[in-house]
């Protein structure tokens, strides 16, 4: 499994050297054609238009080449790399620490922390940016309430903070699921031999979590690369800002398309880097037979750990919600209209449900191919999945508009196409979670089913699918939550009359109608809480199988 998408596969540390790693029982057999058909039903309708768009740019105009060849472009590549690097580093540190504290220590109020720590997942990065900007500075809410002036949070520090908060939940959720798969006997043995807790974490736990951390960090890095909302509000000059500016600022689209190709090349480097650093180690799971002995925090450690969790959750969830509530209160006092759009709530729920359903359906054949029939072509399949995740949404949206207008007119601006676009853009989240689950399924069970006379389809339906269902649903929940935050593709591709909460937030904030923007943002958070509750309170059921 040297591909980036495997999530909760656990490194073989002890015993059975040479045993068949999980998931190669079909090696040597070629994949049935219908798996490929299933795998491509979501990917192709969106991937093909993107390829078409890129081909169009092959006849690029002079303006496009001038844009590409400028020093400015080089600077922007460097800045985007810098932002991605610092965000990924901090998101990984926060996510892994949080997962360890919750899974392996006797930290108090774990159930509360479990959900609060995952909550930033539902707050859109542009809302976070808006809140941070208005809370800091000499006239910020913080200064109003405490008299202490925080410096204005803008530029790299602002973009770093907003995106770290937005992306660490990916690392946290995926790592938290993986950490439970580690056999506690290994840790206990290490501790029994006199290793300090830090050493146990570094030499026993961390290496086993390497694939999970890598998968979470990859999602965090690619999310950062494709983000536009936070970087533009924080006024950090990243690549996406220029791509959006080139799209809206001229009739000629090729400069923006050429820049999008550069962005996907940057993403490829990151995906490739993750694959390389993972090395060629074989991973497979062992059954965990009993709960781990929890590490007892000392008094000062408990205080430090609790404050660290509180600071992160405070910045990521509590402060944003408090600020939004204060805007609504202030607006209501000033007599502003706070009426919320129930059709936007309906639109968001519809969009999220369609996207999650399609993404889950497409993820099944993709992960079966990737895990059971791993080959060069399945690795390209997975690269395609991650490539779409890393592209700016506006590029995908424009590609799909151009394609559907020309070739598939009856479904132009239909919910079906919009749902397919969401599903394809966020498919990486669904496949990451589903793959984690499938890797845990012992292929011997499938062999047994087939040897007892079930056909391959019946085996997948009756044996494989039920065993990976929970991981798949977790992936669907991630797609649901991310779809609710999506804006650029929603604006361009939605049918006339269709609206979502994200669109309402954008429209109101754009007109400085903070009361209404805040009311919609609070609704968005409320609607997204259900899947996050599912992901966080019950991660054992959700992400483990």
């Amino acid at each position, binding site marked *: 499994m040297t591909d980036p998408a495997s999530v909760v596969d656990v490194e073989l540390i002890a015993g059975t050297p040479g045993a068949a790693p999980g998931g190669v029982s079909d090696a040597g057999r070629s994949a049935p054609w219908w798996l490929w058909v299933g795998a491509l039903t979501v990917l192709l309708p969106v991937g093909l238009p993107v390829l078409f768009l890129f081909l169009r740019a092959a006849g690029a105009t002079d303006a496009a080449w001038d844009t590409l060849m400028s020093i*400015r472009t080089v600077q922007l590549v460097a800045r985007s790399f810098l932002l991605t690097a610092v965000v990924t580093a901090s998101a990984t540190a926060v996510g892994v620490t949080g997962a360890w504290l919750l899974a392996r220590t006797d930290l108090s109020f774990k159930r509360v922390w479990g959900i609060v720590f995952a909550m930033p997942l539902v707050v859109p990065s542009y809302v976070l940016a808006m809140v941070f900007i208005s809370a800091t500075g000499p006239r910020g809410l913080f200064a109003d309430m405490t008299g202490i002036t925080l410096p204005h949070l803008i530029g790299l520090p602002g973009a770093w903070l907003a995106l770290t908060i937005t992306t660490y939940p990916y690392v946290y959720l995926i790592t938290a699921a993986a950490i439970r798969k580690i056999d506690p006997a290994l840790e206990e043995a290490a501790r029994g031999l006199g290793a300090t807790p830090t050493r146990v974490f570094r030499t026993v736990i961390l290496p086993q979590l390497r694939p999970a951390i890598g998968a979470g960090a990859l999602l965090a890095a690619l999310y950062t690369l494709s983000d536009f909302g936070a970087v533009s509000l924080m006024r950090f000059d990243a690549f996406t800002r220029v791509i959006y500016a080139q799209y809206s600022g001229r*009739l000629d689209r090729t400069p923006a398309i050429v820049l999008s190709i550069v962005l996907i090349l940057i993403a490829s480097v990151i995906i490739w880097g993750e694959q390389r650093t993972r090395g060629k180690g074989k991973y497979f799971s062992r059954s965990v037979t009993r709960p781990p002995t929890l590490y007892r925090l000392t008094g000062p450690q408990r205080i430090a750990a609790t404050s660290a969790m509180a600071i992160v959750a405070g910045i990521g969830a509590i402060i944003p919600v408090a600020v939004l509530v204060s805007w609504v209160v202030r607006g209501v006092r000033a007599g502003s209209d706070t009426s919320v759009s129930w059709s936007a709530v309906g639109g968001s729920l519809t969009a999220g449900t369609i996207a999650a359903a399609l993404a889950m359906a497409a993820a099944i054949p993709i992960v079966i191919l990737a895990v059971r029939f791993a080959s060069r072509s399945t690795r390209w399949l997975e690269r395609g999945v991650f490539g779409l995740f890393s592209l700016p949404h506006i590029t995908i949206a424009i590609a799909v508009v*151009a394609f559907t207008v020309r070739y598939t007119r009856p479904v132009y601006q239909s919910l*079906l196409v919009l749902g397919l676009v969401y599903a394809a853009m966020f498919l990486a989240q669904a496949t990451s979670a589903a793959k984690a689950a499938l890797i845990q399924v012992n292929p011997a069970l499938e062999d047994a089913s087939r040897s007892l006379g079930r056909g391959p389809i019946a085996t997948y339906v009756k044996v494989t699918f039920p065993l990976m269902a929970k991981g798949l649903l977790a992936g669907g929940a991630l797609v649901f939550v991310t779809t609710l935050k999506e804006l650029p593709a929603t604006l361009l591709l939605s049918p*006339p009359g269709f609206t979502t909460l994200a669109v309402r937030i954008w429209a*109101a904030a754009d007109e400085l109608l903070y009361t209404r923007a805040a009311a919609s943002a609070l609704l968005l958070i409320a609607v997204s809480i259900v899947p996050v509750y599912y992901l966080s309170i019950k991660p054992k059921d959700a992400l483990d199988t």
Partner: protein
Amino acid sequence: MKRLAVLALVVAVTAVACSAGGGGDGLTLYSGRSEDLVQPLIDRFTEETGIEVTVKYAGSADLAATLSEEGTGSPADVFFAQDPASLGTVALAGLLSPLPTDVLSKVPERFSDSQGRWVGTSGRARVVVYDSTAIDPGDLPETEDGFTDPQWRGRVGIAPTNGSFLSFVSAKILVDGEDATLRWLEGMANNASPTFPKNSAIVAAVNDGQIEVGLVNHYYLLRALAESPDLPGANYFFEVATPGSLVMPAGVGILASSDKQESAKKFVEFLLSDESQSYFATETFEYPLVPDIPASELLPPLETIPTPDVDLSMLATVLDTATDLVAQAGLL
């Protein structure tokens, strides 16, 4: 997997069924103007005429590009945009049908397309927003050109990628020429002018004390003041005719491909009715363009704003040049 497949099928069928419901007698409107501002007006139109309006909201430039992509097969009947450059883009592509003279004559000529393909519905003045606790308006320069002076270093916020800023740059190209416009943009860049994604962010930054001055459209501040009256921001209108004081219209055009020309015309007429024009004055704090409808008392009268002689129909022809110059100056 079977259940999921069934679920997917149900979802797909519903999705197609839902999206097929757009036909009928109703109008389909592409609106680059925000739902918060114009939906109440559209609801009034439906009440009065019985014509249902299905709206697609997005950015004006995005919708203009979408219309160009859709060509003559567009589902849209009417395009309602924030700026003349977006309307001009669609008009240049030959997608708008000429409006009847009785519609065009309701609004002063300078606020409509010279060939009558779109008509202005409300006016938006380019202004300087400043922090009244930090700046004496008497110290502000005579035109936007003064902001390249070193004394304004790092103090003037601009939104170089924003549609209304690009429209202003386009107008500056038409008035002052390409070279002078590039020099001005370079001057702003060399002066380390902070850049923002949009006008509203500049107004918020001035009110927050992040920056002292910004180049924006006039109405954002008035809307912010309506929510929080104690804000320190204030608007300054240049006293000489310069692209920086240009009044640019939001406007509307009818798609030539629409088979609902009569209903579409009714909608355009409705936007120019006294009721709608008063709505723009009191609710969105824009300038009504139909004469005799008073603007907000907080604003100087439209006639008193000195305006350079610009054919707004031409803005779209220099839009790509404007973006090139902004990029060349290092602001992109």
